Every structure is written in C-alpha cells, then in structure tokens.
C-alpha cells in the first residue's frame, strides 16, 4: 500500500467523524429549538360562543376585553372585530370615531381601518357563525375580509 493511500483513508475517517460530530451538534441545536416551541398552549380557546343573537340588539358595539374582540351588530348583520392593536398588541378602546389605542395613539374608524397613529394594518375581522345550539360563535383563528358580515 502506498503511503498517500493510508493518509487518504485517515482523511476519510477524519471527514466522516467531523460530519458525525458537527451533524449531531446541529441536530441537538435543532431539537432544542423544537423543544422551545410549545405544542400546547394554556390560554383560552380561540373559538368561543358569546350567546344568542337576541342578546345583541341592533346597533350594538360591545368590546369584550377578555377575548379581545368587539361584537358589532347592525340590523340583522353581525361581525367581530379584533381589539388587539396591530401596532404593539395593546387593547384598543371604543371611541366616538371607532377605536383608539392607549399605548401609542393609533386610531381606527368604526370598521377598524387605520385613521391615524403608528398602526401598520387595520384591525382584523374574525369569522362569525351560528353554532348548532343557536349561539353566536367566533373563531379568532379564521380572519375574514373587513366588511364581511354574518346575517342572523
């Protein structure tokens, strides 16, 4: 056997073990990142019932701070607008002209469109539906186009 062949075998093993070592290290890092991302969260469900349609008479604009959503009813049409400020996540309050954020002064109109302040996006609208038991159900995991109403 020629001496340089011996060296190349040694080099091969060096390479293989390096790949093994660094590969394992990379795998360890990735699995730690996976570990840090929770699979279960303990916060309240994003889909919830808010009551019968008749609990919300026409003209209602009711902010529910626990679920961070504003229930709007105009005539027979209902919608749910997020009250989480799209700027930095504060809870916006209902104001005369729509919504106003206490943290950085973002302002929105009645439909959640930005009218002033640093907010980059309008307030999202959530899907409203009627559950089989006759209650209005809101799903915060499903956004709908602003202006999309659910007719009760």
């Amino acid at each position, binding site marked *: 056997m020629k001496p340089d062949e011996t060296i190349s075998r040694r080099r091969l093993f060096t390479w293989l073990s390096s790949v093994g070592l660094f590969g394992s290290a990379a795998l360890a890092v990735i699995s730690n990142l996976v570990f840090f*991302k929770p699979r279960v969260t*303990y916060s309240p469900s994003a889909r919830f019932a808010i009551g019968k349609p008749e609990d919300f008479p026409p003209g209602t604009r009711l902010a529910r701070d626990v679920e961070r959503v504003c229930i709007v009813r105009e005539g027979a049409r209902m919608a749910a607008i997020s009250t989480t400020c799209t700027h*930095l996540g*504060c*809870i916006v309050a209902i104001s005369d002209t729509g919504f106003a954020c206490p943290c950085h002064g973002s302002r929105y109109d009645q439909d959640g469109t930005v009218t002033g302040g*640093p907010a980059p996006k309008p307030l999202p609208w959530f899907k409203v539906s009627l559950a089989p038991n006759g209650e209005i159900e809101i799903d915060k995991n499903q956004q709908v186009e602003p202006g999309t109403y659910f007719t009760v």
Partner: protein
Amino acid sequence: MSTATKPPGAWNAIRELPSNVWSSIFRNPLPSTDLERASTSFTNFFLHLHPVKVHRNTLRPIYTLGLGLISLFLFVILVVTGILLMFYYVPSTTQAYDRMLDLRGTVAFGIFLRNMHRWSAHGMVAVVFLHMCRVFFTGAYKKPREFNWVIGVVLLLVTLFLSFTGYLLPWDQLAFWAITVGTSIAGYAPLLGAQMKFVLLGDTTVGQEALLRFYVLHVAVLPAVLSLLIAIHFWRIRKDGGLSRPENAGSPAPPTNVGVVKMRLEPGAESGKRTVFGLQGFVRGPFTKVGNVPDDSVYSWPNLLLAELFVLVLTISVILVLSLIFNAPLEQPVNVMHPPNPAKAPWYFLGLQEMVSYSAFWGGIGVPTVMVGLLFLVPYIDRGTAGVGKWFARERLLANTIFLTMVLVNVIFIIIGTFFRGPNWGLVSPF
C-alpha cells in the same frame, strides 16, 4: 537514646498546627518586598486574574472612570440579592404579585433587597452603556482589542435582555404592559418575527408561560451567559496587553502585536527541521517588564487592589444609600383588560418606544438593527491607530462626533419618551 529516629513529636505538630494550616492556605506572608508582591499576585487564585504589574495609566481614575469595574460589582450585587430574592419568589401569575407584597411587608429586609436589586439593575444598564462610551471616546477598541469590543457589545445586549426579562417578574401593570409592548416589537422582525415572539412568550399572549420562560431566562440562562462572557472579556484584557493607553505613555512601548518570537533555545536547533519556541515567545502585546528596566508600571499589590477596593466600597455605598431612600416601584396587579395610559416600557427602552411610535418596523427593528450592526463593526471599519488612549483625541474627531451624535439622539429620544409623552402617547409638558 534513640530520639534521632523518632518522628517529630505529636506535641510539636499540635503546637505548630495553626501556623502550618495558615501557611498551607496562604503561600505568602503579607508582602513587604517587590518579589513578595509579585509572588502574592502570581500564586493567589483570586489575585492571579491581575497582572503582577500594571501600567500607571490603568490606575488613572480620570482615564477609566472605573466604569467596567462598577459594572462588574453591580453584577455581583445583582447575583447576590437575586439569589436571596429567589428564596421568596414564585414565578406564577397567581402568586408573583402577592410575593412582591410579602417582600415589602413581611420578609425581613425584603423591601431593602428588592430595592438593591432594582437600583443595581438600572445602574448596571446605565454604567455598561457609559463604559462603552468611555471605550469609544478613548479609542480603546483599536487593534488588538477589536474582538473584546465585540464581546462588550454582546455584554451590553445581554445586560439589556437580563433587565427586560426581570421586568416582567413582579407581575404588576407596569411589568405586563411593558413586556406586551416589548415582545410585540420582536414580532415585527421580518420572516421569523412572529415565530420568535411565540417561542419567547410560549403562548400567543403574555401569560403564565411567558412568566415562567422569562423567569428561567432571568435567573439561570442569561446570568450564566453573562458570566462566561465577562470571563472572556477580562481574559482578553490581559491577553491584549492590559488596558489601552497612549502609545508614548512612559517608556516607548514595544509593537502591540509581536506575534510569535522565535527564540533559539539550543545551539544547532536551526540545523534540524524543527524550530524550538520558548513559551515567552507566545506573549502578545506590550510586555510587562520585571526587574530593573525603567518603565511606568507599578505592582498590582497593593496599587491596583486598593483602587478596586475603593470602587467596590463606593459602588456598594451608593446602592445602599439609594435603597434606603427610594423604594422600587410596584404598581397595581396585572389587569389584562386595562392597559395603563400611556403604557411605557422601562426607561432604557423608551427611546426605542418613542421611535416605534413613528414606525413599528423602522423604529423597533430597522434602526436598532443598523445601530447594533454598526457597533459590532466599528473596530473593523475604523482602522486608524492614532489617538488611542486619549479622551476625545483630535485625531478621532470624526469618529467621536458620529458616535456622540448617535448617543445624543438615543438620549434625547429616551428623554422625550420618559417626560414628554402622556395619554395616547401624545405630547405633554412635564412642567
């Protein structure tokens, strides 16, 4: 008479026990000669962090202002008071606030410990920042100290993150909304922003998971990271030739980076293939001369140690006095329905929040990223060697002006955010 073969008497052993134990612990008597001073620094675990001799410039209070040391001592105070506070704290949304009230009302010295921890934390953020300013304005980040500057920038960031994670723990209104605002800023980062925020909070909103995560980061992960980085920071100060100083301070300094000096150890060593190196050959940077060489250095024992002791006593005294006079604030317990108006971040992030009020992405992510990036790159951009070791050197007018402008802009934003912002983040007069 066989006394000569008898082992030393047990009586003697007992009689000499105290002095034997003493001398086995302490290798040197209290030094009275230069040799003993050197030996004391060299052989003691705690003292060997120091060089045997230091340059006089290192000891000039007006040069360093002791800011690095003050940062270290504040960190030590924070570790000690933090560990004590851990004995009474529970990272639970239902208990944390009550534990704060307990610290204030029933735990012996509880309020005092909490004050010390809070004021030291604020102090550390401020002093670490000032330390960075000192290093910049004296040009101390120049070759060969570039990488230590980079470590210093990381130390500043870790300090800020430590302070930020600690901010949530009292679980009062201030804590909750400051963290809500702060983590939303992280959510604006491109690509991974939303993921990052979710992983940091462990949930979609600030709650029990976030409190637990911040707690673990605050009491275990970040202090460990900070300690390791501090150790490297100090080690490199030594290996980079001590603190920076003017080129011509005292005796003419040898070149700052001599690399490996080949020293022929035995005759004929060069004739073979191998070159033999003396260990001395690996020493980089200005050498410490020992012996009758005229130079401008003094023995660390007692000069450096006394200076350090003075800074330590001063730091502890100031923190003690502050903690006796001012109580750490504690607001109402968390009410997730009602953000305070205005909801403000901790003071050192108010500059950031002020910028965020103009544009969430540029204020919260864009500009800070550029600034931190510039900080990391400064020693690799600014390669001139003139004006090192001098405050506001004329040769460094441009660099100093740019840095000072950045500092002032930040300070002005912090002042505006702190004093001139009222409800709905509108402009108000503090007077």
